[in-house]
């Protein structure tokens, strides 16, 4: 039997007159990678924000490992992490300093060893004494990913993890995420506009539009169901309908 790590129940968020998320419900099983797709402004970031306890829902609940995020924010966040291209790490700190700060924030044991291991896996060792602000966008992206993995999260939220990266770096990151998910059994929610990435990484996909989840399933099932050649065509069909 699959164990639901995340249960979202009748979740809604209203900002003044706009209903950003409209009564959505879904479950994510432990160890699965779920893609959250949808056009800009469809409510993906708001949904992720509520799942991370950053945004207070207007109604509904987010239950993680059996605990409501609203009442157990600190203890749940210890086991979670998040990256987004819209947030950055302090530019004046070196790569190593940033990882030390976040490692301590998450109470990571044997931090020095953990940092060395992550930096090695993400090919960051040669940059460890460089200030984060001096790195290229691809290198910064890897540092953000290293920060997101420093606490060995059980649940990882990835918001466009390969946005603005060249194909080679993007591919390396995807391989790393696949590897991490399979070895650690982590649950991952991936929001992305890169349909190839979603097809490759995700066990299931949820399509959002106007604050609602309008379709969900395996990529192959969605492609067949909508009679299209690939997920990108499915996305375009749903968005333009």
């Amino acid at each position: 039997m699959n164990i639901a790590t995340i249960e979202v129940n009748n979740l809604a968020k209203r900002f003044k007159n706009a209903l950003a998320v409209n009564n959505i419900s879904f479950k994510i099983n432990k160890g699965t990678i779920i893609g959250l797709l949808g056009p800009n402004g469809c409510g993906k970031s708001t949904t992720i924000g509520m799942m991370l306890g950053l945004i207070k829902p207007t109604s509904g609940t987010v239950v993680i490992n059996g605990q409501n995020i609203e009442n157990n924010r600190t203890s749940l966040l210890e086991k979670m992490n998040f990256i987004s291209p819209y947030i950055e790490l302090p530019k004046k700190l070196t790569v190593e300093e940033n990882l030390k700060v976040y490692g301590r924030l998450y109470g990571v044991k044997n931090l020095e060893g953990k940092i060395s291991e992550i930096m090695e896996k993400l090919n960051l060792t040669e940059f460890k004494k460089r200030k984060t602000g001096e790195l290229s966008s691809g290198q910064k992206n890897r540092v953000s990913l290293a920060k997101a993995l420093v606490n060995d999260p059980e649940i990882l939220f990835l918001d466009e993890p390969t946005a603005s990266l060249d194909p080679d770096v993007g591919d390396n990151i995807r391989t790393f995420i696949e590897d991490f998910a399979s070895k650690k059994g982590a649950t991952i929610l991936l929001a992305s506009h890169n349909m190839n990435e979603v097809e490759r990484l995700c066990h299931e996909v949820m399509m959002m539009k106007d604050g609602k989840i309008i379709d969900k399933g395996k990529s192959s099932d969605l492609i067949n169901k909508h009679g299209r050649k690939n997920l990108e065509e499915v996305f375009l069909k749903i968005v333009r309908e």
Partner: protein
Amino acid sequence: MKFHRIYALSLRHLYVIRSSLPRILDLIYWPTIQIVLWGFISKFFATHSDFYNHTVGVILSAAILYDFLFRSSISFNMLFLEEIWSRNFTNLFVSPLKISEIITALTATALLRTLIGIIPAILLAAPFFGVSIFNLGPSLILLFLSLYLFGITLGLLVTSGLLRYGPAFENVAWSSLFLLAPLGCVYYPLSILPDWLQILAKGLPLVYIFEEVRSILLNNVVNYSNILSALILNLIYFTSAVGVFYLAFSGARKRGTLINVGE
């Protein structure tokens, strides 16, 4: 509260201070300029006015203490703004950091930042102008504590505004203390103010602190009721400011502004 999280956030700011000599010089520069300027103004008054004969030390001591207050408040604001400017804000709020831990870490780091700036200025005042802040005696510790509490209180209120209104509130961060300075009676006695303003001023701990400084330096009398009044007012304001900060955080969660705060 967990020490490792408080230490981590403090460490993040210590790394920034440590990594940049210009930043350390900038911390020292303004308090030093302030003290030198007030030192010469005091010296001029002392030379050209009988009234100020005994007050060189008073004005300069008040300038040092006011600068300590100013730096502590600005330091708290700066540490918070640093997170907004570096777009690191959301990273902190998706970590297990509690609000109480953020306040504790920023309060501790702001003290260090303030001391880096003010200690050279205090040390300069003695050889250059013959004024030592330590003439205030053991009460100095309580006066510093009161000023620091008030500085942090203002810092908490300004950062609550930053949480509520976003980076647009930044200008208030710089001007908050200037707004209160005229009422604080830093360089003149409370009796100078019109009666109706005196009533308002008595609601500020600054009045009791600086009245006490003058009392000690001019009359050599320590009036503990002034010190106690300042501390009580500070505790009330500080507790209220912590409450305001929690409300601002809760409001920011409702409005969804924690997810993308940046320049």
